[in-house]
């Protein structure tokens, strides 16, 4: 059995079949790319997996656990974290607070979060993370002051801070300049080196093909194929999906 498995995932919006009978598997400690033309249903698939949208049907199995009915907020505790295509950081919280919120997700009970005041360890972790991406100097400034690319980095760091085993990234390279793209790439590869598993939606093909072990292709809400990057790049169906017939 694979590490993460999606089966028969389906979602319709009114008459639109955004995701239709989607099936795929992700191997442990791999980087798997998820590609497809605009509107193929990639983001919707993420939202269904993480329960930010209710699904019509379908099962998701993660690390032998059925997470088909686990509500969104419990996924982090189950080892799954994600970013959003439309960045969602906490604009009025400082960078430090943005990260402390996830580092300290161990405060699962509100009661502990009320009384635990000593956050020395958590702060050390935050410092180390922010230094790694050169954002430490802004640690105590509100996150709304960050540039677009920096916000993206912060959102990825926030995922990392949760110590999730499976990380879903929705277009981490979009709108990021080449220098910062190298930082994003390094973060992703480091995560893999730490044994994490990543599922990455991306339109930047050179970037994605360079880091991925496998690529899943979606078209019109459906699964089209899944294979090694070099195979997918050569496949006539994929070219057709992207170029139109």
């Amino acid at each position: 059995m694979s590490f993460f498995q999606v089966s028969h995932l389906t979602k319709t919006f009114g008459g639109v079949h955004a995701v239709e009978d989607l099936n795929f598997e992700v191997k442990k400690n791999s980087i798997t790319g998820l590609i497809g033309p605009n509107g193929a249903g990639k983001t919707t698939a993420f939202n269904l997996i993480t329960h930010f949208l209710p699904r019509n049907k379908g099962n998701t199995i993660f690390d032998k656990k059925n997470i088909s009915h686990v509500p969104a907020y419990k996924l982090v505790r189950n080892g799954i974290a994600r970013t959003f295509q439309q960045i969602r950081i906490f604009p009025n919280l400082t960078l430090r607070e943005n990260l402390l919120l996830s580092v300290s997700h161990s405060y699962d009970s509100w009661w502990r979060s009320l009384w635990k005041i000593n956050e020395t360890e958590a702060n050390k972790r935050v410092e180390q993370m922010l230094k790694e991406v050169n954002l430490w100097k802004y640690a105590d400034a509100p996150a709304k002051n960050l540039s677009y690319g920096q916000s993206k980095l912060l959102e990825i760091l926030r995922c990392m801070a949760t110590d999730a085993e499976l990380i879903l990234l929705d277009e981490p390279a979009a709108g990021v300049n080449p220098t910062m793209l190298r930082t994003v790439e390094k973060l992703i590869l480091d995560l893999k080196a730490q044994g994490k598993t990543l599922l990455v939606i991306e339109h930047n093909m050179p970037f994605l093909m360079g880091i991925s072990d496998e690529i899943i292709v979606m078209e019109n809400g459906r699964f089209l194929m899944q294979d090694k990057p070099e195979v997918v790049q050569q496949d006539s169906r994929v070219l057709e999906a992207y170029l139109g017939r």
Partner: protein
Amino acid sequence: MLSYLFSLLIITAIWVLLVQSYNLSFGLTGLFNLGHIIFYGIGAYTAGILNTRYGFGFFENLLFSALVAGTFAAFFGLLTLRLSGHYLAIATLGAAMIATVVATNWVSLTNGPLGIRGIDEPELFGQVIQADSFGFLLLIPGVVVVCNILLFRIFHSPFGRILRSIKDDETASRAVGKNIFEAKMWSLVLSAAFAGIAGTLYAHYRLFLDPSIFAIPEIILIILMVVVGGRGNFWGAILGTILVVIIGEVPRFIGFPNNIVGATRNILFSALLIGTMFLRPNGLFTFFQKRTE
């Protein structure tokens, strides 16, 4: 003059607690709950009823009014917290109106429009602390300070950070594993418990209660005080309350005729609210918050 200043101080202290309790749910968590005055009224009535019928004293009432108001808030939250934004505001405003009706008509419990009279003054070590004594001036602000210390802890705890993250972006907060409903619920319950304590202070100060305690204009005043201080700003709420109380006293102080004092006050308050929202949407006391740039 002295007794005027005296009562102004006591009333301001009670306001500070009520406003700070609202600052927790409305300011920090962003719950647009227009029914906060219900918790205050319930706290006051709990104290009044327990005292006049069952002989509970001031200190027991502090505890019981917090419990009753908090428990009520839990049910209130179950009914309303699934709503968001304007829907929550409208539902809770409706609840505040219902509260007045209930307090007026549930005569067997509240004695209706005649209200509850003859509430005892606080007693400490067998010594009655009269409402115009120096001891009273220590007691009420003392309780308010203790409550504010507890509230300060809540505001600055990791829990407070979760509440602020909810105000910023609920979806993102869920994405980092926070149980939004639970956090909002506790924010409301704690906020209500402190409002209940403020109600007890009021009951044992005025020694008389009637349904006007649930009046809608009071809600507007609380909102004004929080907004002037800056939503979620701990020190701001205290300064905002003091500022609004002082501004409210200006017309009387400079000798306006009694019949227009109320109207003048309302004009001043409205101007302050509109001015703050246009010119300083984060409140007048932003220097107490961390520098933002």
